[in-house]
């Protein structure tokens, strides 16, 4: 499990995160939401150990992050970045293989890589050149790489950190990606922490939601506790309706179309062209 206690991050004189405490238990999916610049990605960087907080502690399995050897930590926690700067023409399979870097035994690499590609629905493109893929396909390959990093026989608790894993994905793959993360939480006891902009995706798949606002924790709880008109108004300055998903009974957010936040006008002749 992953614990962060009173994390404060100050870069130059700007306060990015202020006294934020979060936890992700084994088997749990936690969604981190909030407006642009709320500190979500910074929080993920702190939780992964990449960024040292100005004050506060991060504990992995009860031990401070700084006491972990890099390779040992790499077999327990993985982070999917928003973007990858990979610009060399590796094959898709080779990119996923890079996720096996922390492991030295070579025997099962091929099976693991295939299985991870299968899970993100990219096995059929395993021999394509990564740099020629679309943005969404690249994102799925990177997801497979991150899954391959955590897949092993050891009984360690795994921590999966995802920074906007659905930002370039089409609707079915958005859902599939979150379903995949949830499956790893349920079946393999992963602690999953995922930054999401889509509140409905978060509400549908997360056990808990955390709202960050201007570097502070604004609200946290189960979807039905925190996905409310009040929280959304205070965090996003946005009026909304909350309705219930007919299948899951989870809250869904609809942005209000009242004069206070009016919709952009669409001319009827434009709609005809789209037809």
């Amino acid at each position, binding site marked *: 499990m992953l614990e962060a206690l009173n994390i404060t991050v100050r870069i130059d004189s700007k306060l990015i995160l202020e006294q934020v405490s979060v936890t992700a238990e084994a088997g749990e999916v936690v969604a981190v939401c909030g407006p642009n610049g709320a500190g979500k990605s910074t929080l993920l960087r702190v939780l992964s150990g990449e960024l040292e907080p100005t004050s506060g502690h991060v504990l992995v399995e009860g031990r401070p992050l700084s006491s972990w050897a890099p390779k040992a930590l790499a077999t327990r926690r993985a982070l999917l970045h928003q973007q990858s*700067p990979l610009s060399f023409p590796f094959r898709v399979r*080779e990119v996923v293989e890079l996720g096996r870097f922390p492991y030295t035994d070579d025997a099962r690499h091929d099976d693991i890589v295939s299985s991870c590609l299968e899970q993100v629905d990219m096995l059929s493109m395993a021999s394509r050149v990564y740099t020629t893929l679309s943005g969404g396909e690249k994102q799925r390959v990177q997801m497979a790489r991150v899954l391959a*990093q955590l897949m092993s026989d050891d009984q360690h608790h795994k921590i999966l950190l995802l920074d906007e894993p659905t930002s370039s994905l089409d609707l079915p793959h958005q859902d599939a990606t979150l379903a995949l993360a949830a499956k790893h939480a349920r079946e393999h006891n992963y602690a999953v922490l995922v930054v999401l902009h889509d509140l409905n995706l978060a509400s549908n798949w997360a056990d808990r939601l955390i709202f960050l606002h201007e570097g502070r924790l604004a609200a946290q709880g189960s979807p039905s506790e925190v996905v409310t008109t009040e929280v959304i108004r205070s965090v996003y300055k946005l009026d909304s309706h909350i309705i219930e998903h007919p299948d899951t009974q989870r809250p869904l957010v609809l942005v209000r179309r009242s004069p206070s936040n009016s919709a952009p006008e669409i001319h009827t002749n434009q709609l005809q062209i789209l037809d």
Partner: protein
Amino acid sequence: MSRLYAISLVLALIVVAIMSLAFGAMSIPFADVVRISFGALGLADPGFVEPGQHGVLMGIRFPRTLLAILVGGGLSVAGALMQGLFRNPLADPGLLGVSSGAALGAALIIVLGTTLGLSAPWMLPVAAFVGAVVSTLLVMRLSTVGSKTMVSNMLLAGIAINAIAGAGTGLLVYLADDDQLRDLTFWTLGSFGGASWADIRLSMVLIVVPTGFALFWARTLNVMLLGESAAYMLGVSIQRLKQRIVVVVCIVVGCSVALSGMIGFVGLVVPHLCRLMFGPDNRKVVPASLFLGATLLLGADLVSRLVIVPSELPIGIVTSVIGGPFFLALLSSSRKKGLW
């Protein structure tokens, strides 16, 4: 396909090495080359050896051939390391200020050596090596904030140090007389003409050992291509790797430049050629660069000795004349395949 390439790389090196030993102002038959070589290694009884042939082969051609192999391999592996570190196929060791620092050191000795009483023959390579090390340390120091070295700052610091060293060299060129100017120009174009066994012993320590270490970093370099942040997540100690790469590149390139002058193009082009043959996997690119770099530089040296016998062309001219068009041709053919 890549196995075929690998075998041809090794064979090409052997063939070019034998040609390099056999051809020159005095031609030695292949059979005698092999016989004398095996004899020198104590593997076979050489039988009767003509003293002149033996002298040319063991005293001149062997050290020269070995030095070209070591420098070619070392420069190419250094180039592959730089391209991995900068995640950019256009990076080369010159970015660290190694070459310009070495040039300043060499110019200092060539132009002011007599005045300063530093004109002993060993002074030139020592000064070039010191120049290379000092400028690299400066670049490293300037691009490190706290305990983190920023690769983008390294690029900028390298440009600044190159400019400053270039100004120093320029000043010395201005002060130089005609003979010194000629020496300096020839030095910057590179040559293996003066190679000795002492050079080879030195290269064993300063080129072979660090290059050997670098061969073990190929897998880590692959992970670095995902970005420093992703590499950190996978357990790479980024700062330590950066320092090691810079140290290896500095020593290998510094020693190469000190012993053979400035030989451009090899460090940039060879890893690129290897990537076109084997794909971007550094586990193939780094060792392939070693062999291809050695072969190409040895071949270039051979050409430089043969085109205007008994005189020699500076090797920098040959590497650029052959390498440039070849590289362009490969680029245009791979661009059609959409690989870059």
